[in-house]
């Protein structure tokens, strides 16, 4: 089965105040070292994988901020992958971009290199909220990035938005959705803000400088998102994701369908040959492993059939269509009810799950309380 390929670019101009992903402030030496390690890691895999395993279904370059690399660096990554892997059947090559790091020239080069999807971190339409989040750009610059992507020849453009921000009103969010949905985008991800421990924003909330968004207000924003974007023709296909029909992100669906993927770069994760692997987060650790000619991952866990079933369920239920029941039986040789019958009955009774046309899916209420449903399957 062709794999999804993920490349983690762990650099940003400046880390955002809510972010707890692995990212470092971009500086030349670190980036050069990273690029050479990454090339090493790619060729290392190329030596050990079979021809079939080198067939790439999707390529996703994420971060961090991939576009804070210079054009040549990005080109280098894509060209090295093309050299060592088989991209002939690759239907989607995505690069994540942040406003302020993408000029027309860089975008044109990416397009020329075969990148056919761009995902721009717009996050909010309000400069006040962008400042609170510690973003380095304003909304005007975000729109300029979208426009530039179109001008560079990208047709498949998506944006990320965050709602449930401190002090954000339901009205502000609706207005933002209206504005963004008029930009001609193919894909919109709308995430609710997760306050992660240890982030600057968590500190400011603890200090009383910012008020976290009320649970009811946030829930209202979620249902408004569904309503507004549906009206504009977007299909709600995953809890936080909306796309024009046929423009659903192929790469992320690999995760949700619990299919194999290979992660390259520091802190990247892989699910491959029935085991999960994690690369080290620290750059030095990553660099020195590759320099020594060995795979970077520090953690490998074989996935037992029970775990695979449980992950297939709680990941698959994130999709709005739900979990394909026939697909489950074929994959595991037993019916889902034989494994989780009691739990499913309970969740159906509580109105959180429902059966629909051969699928088991979250109800609208179930989408609000996804974790409650998912935790029943771990």
């Amino acid at each position, binding site marked *: 089965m062709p794999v999804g390929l*993920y490349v*983690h670019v762990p650099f940003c101009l400046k880390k955002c105040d809510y972010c707890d*992903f692995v990212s470092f402030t971009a500086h030349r030496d670190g980036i050069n070292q990273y690029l050479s390690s990454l090339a090493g890691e790619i060729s290392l895999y190329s030596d050990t994988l079979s021809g079939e395993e080198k067939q790439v279904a999707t390529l996703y370059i*994420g971060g961090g901020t991939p576009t804070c690399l210079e054009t040549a660096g990005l080109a280098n990554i894509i060209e090295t992958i093309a050299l060592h892997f088989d991209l002939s059947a690759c239907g989607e090559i995505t690069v994540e971009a942040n406003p302020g790091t993408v000029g027309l020239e860089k975008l044109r080069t990416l397009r020329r290199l075969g990148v056919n999807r761009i995902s721009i971190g717009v996050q909010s339409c309000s400069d006040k909220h962008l400042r609170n989040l510690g973003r380095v750009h304003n909304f005007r610059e975000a729109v300029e990035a979208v426009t530039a992507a179109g001008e560079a020849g990208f047709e498949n453009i998506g944006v990320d938005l965050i709602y449930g921000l401190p002090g954000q009103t339901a009205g502000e969010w609706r207005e933002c959705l209206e504005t963004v949905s008029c930009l001609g985008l193919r894909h919109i991800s709308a*995430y*609710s*803000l*997760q306050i992660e421990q240890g982030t600057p924003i968590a500190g400011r909330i603890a200090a009383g400088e910012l008020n976290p968004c009320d*649970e*009811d207000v*946030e*829930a209202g924003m*979620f249902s408004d998102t569904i309503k507004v974007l549906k009206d504009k023709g977007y299909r709600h296909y995953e*809890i*936080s994701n909306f796309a024009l029909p046929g423009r659903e992100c192929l790469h*992320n669906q690999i*995760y*949700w369908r619990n299919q194999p*993927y290979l*992660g390259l770069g520091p802190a*990247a*994760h*892989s*699910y491959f040959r029935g085991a*999960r692997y*994690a690369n080290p987060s620290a750059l030095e650790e990553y660099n020195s492993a590759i320099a020594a000619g060995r795979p970077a991952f520090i953690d490998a*866990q074989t996935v037992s059939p029970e775990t695979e079933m*449980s*992950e297939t369920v*709680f*990941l698959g239920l*994130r999709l709005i269509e739900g979990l394909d029941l026939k697909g489950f039986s074929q994959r595991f040789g037993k019916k889902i009810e034989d494994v989780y019958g009691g739990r499913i009955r309970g969740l159906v009774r*509580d109105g*959180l799950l429902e059966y629909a046309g051969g699928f088991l899916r979250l109800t609208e209420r179930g*989408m*609000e*309380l*996804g*974790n*409650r449903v*998912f*935790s*029943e399957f*771990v």
Partner: protein
Amino acid sequence: MVNRQEHIRNFCIIAHIDHGKSTLADRILEYTGALSQREMTDQVLDKMDLERERGITIKMQAVRLNYRARDGKEYQLNLIDTPGHVDFTYEVSRSLAACEGALLVVDAAQGIEAQTLANVYMAIENNLEIIPVINKIDLPSAEPERVKKEIEDVIGLDASEAVLVSAKMGTGVEEVLEEIVKKIPPPSGDREAPLQALIFDSHYDSYKGVIAYVRVIHGSLEKGTRIRMMATEREFELNEVGVFRPSMATVEGLKVGEVGFLAASIKNVKDCRVGDTVTDADNPAPRPLPGYRKVTPMVYCGLYPIDNVQYDDLRDALEKLKLNDASLVFEPETSEALGFGFRCGFLGLLHMEIIQERLEREYRLDLITTAPSVVYRITTTARETLEIDNPTKMPPQGKIEIMEEPFVKATIMVPKDYVGTVMDLSQERRGIFKNMEYMGENRVMLTYDLPLSEIIFDFFDQLKSRTKGYASLDYELIGYRESKLVKLDIMINGDPLDALTCIVHQEKAYYRGRQLVEKLRSLIPRQLFDVPVQAAIGNKIISRETIKARRKDVLAKCYGGDITRKRKLLEKQKEGKKRMKQVGSVEIPQEAFMAVLSIDDNK
């Protein structure tokens, strides 16, 4: 050997918390060489972790020390440690019965506190020789002369020869030892008489069975003797006799007047009651020694395992704790909401907290503690008298003729600037003013009659916080008085939650009901559906709040391909759910059951 008895001194130390009892005890151990300085971890006698953390002594310890006095003779000193908290008066009474003398340790800056006073009076009643010791003389604020005068005025003891000590610096320790030798009388027992040894404490050892702490009053105790417990009439082969130095050390025997321990493969603690007399089965004493006053629990609460499969573990753990703590009582009970558990009686709130913490820490049990209650006395219209230690058992109002609750006489000592504050607090708690007395220029002793139920409800914490820690409290039960009391029921999602039922004074019922309902709303997490929380008296709802349905509980992001992290988050959520008690269809966290205790009157 003629005068072995002459060279024994048995003593204990009476002190208020923080007045330096444990530090002084440590210095004495160090001085007499029972422990080298290197072996000293701070406060050796406070053995339990909990004791060290809270800086208090709960369980007694007994240590044998050897001291060569200035008269050139070698003395055997037995130090019997005593707890300093008001909850543990009972344990103090047990230590006193094993001693001929007591050190009264008073802080040179703070003076006498209420609890000290109560214990000194108890020691005087027991005919103990009291040696005043003024500690912390190194403090800049020390006023030893004022404190001496206070001891004379308030207690009526001659303090002219009080020993001035700084246990911290180690000054005056030798003088204390000399005073012990000089003033405390040697034990007066008859070594030829049949054996009579008083059991003043015990602990359970998984290899040796019950270890009884004994003071030989008459006769002697030797290994191999067949002993009889006079109250239970059980007989055992004595297979080990020893002393604490402070670790356990075997000796050939204990002679008259000596303090130590015995082990006789006693498997059941019920066969070895604290307060009982040990005698020689082949040459029994005609009658037992006078026992201690019987301990009566003041506070009751229900203890329930969150997970019902832990019920047997809980019973085993309670039985084990009971081995070391005769004051703990428990019997099985059932709650509609909580299933099977135990109704437990405690000496006070601190005692209750300590037992609960030990069960959770040492026996790894997840417990729910129901609101504490005192024992109410009810006379029904049918002229029956009922004692109610569980509020849910209160009969309907219509069937109650008279309802009485326990009252205490509370003695509060406080700097005079705080008199108003203490009076306000006592008033709020239905206190009846009895007396006010100046002790020196600055300090005042207030006496109130207060309902015990008001004392267990957060009174001590309030007293401490409102007087910036300066007030001290002692109380003793003075009997039952009639009160206008009602049963306050709490209903969650329409069903009464028996574990939260409490008995409150009529005039406070509305206020308390509202507070409780608000508190519960903030403690119970939002559920799948709206959950009403109500307080009711009889059929009448007096307060209502709604816990709104949970609206949002989902992770937005996928964290790239980090499924393991996602799984861990979900596992954590599942764990959290397990620690809640499922009552009907509502999940209630442990803290909610203690809500009744933590209500702040000032809010």
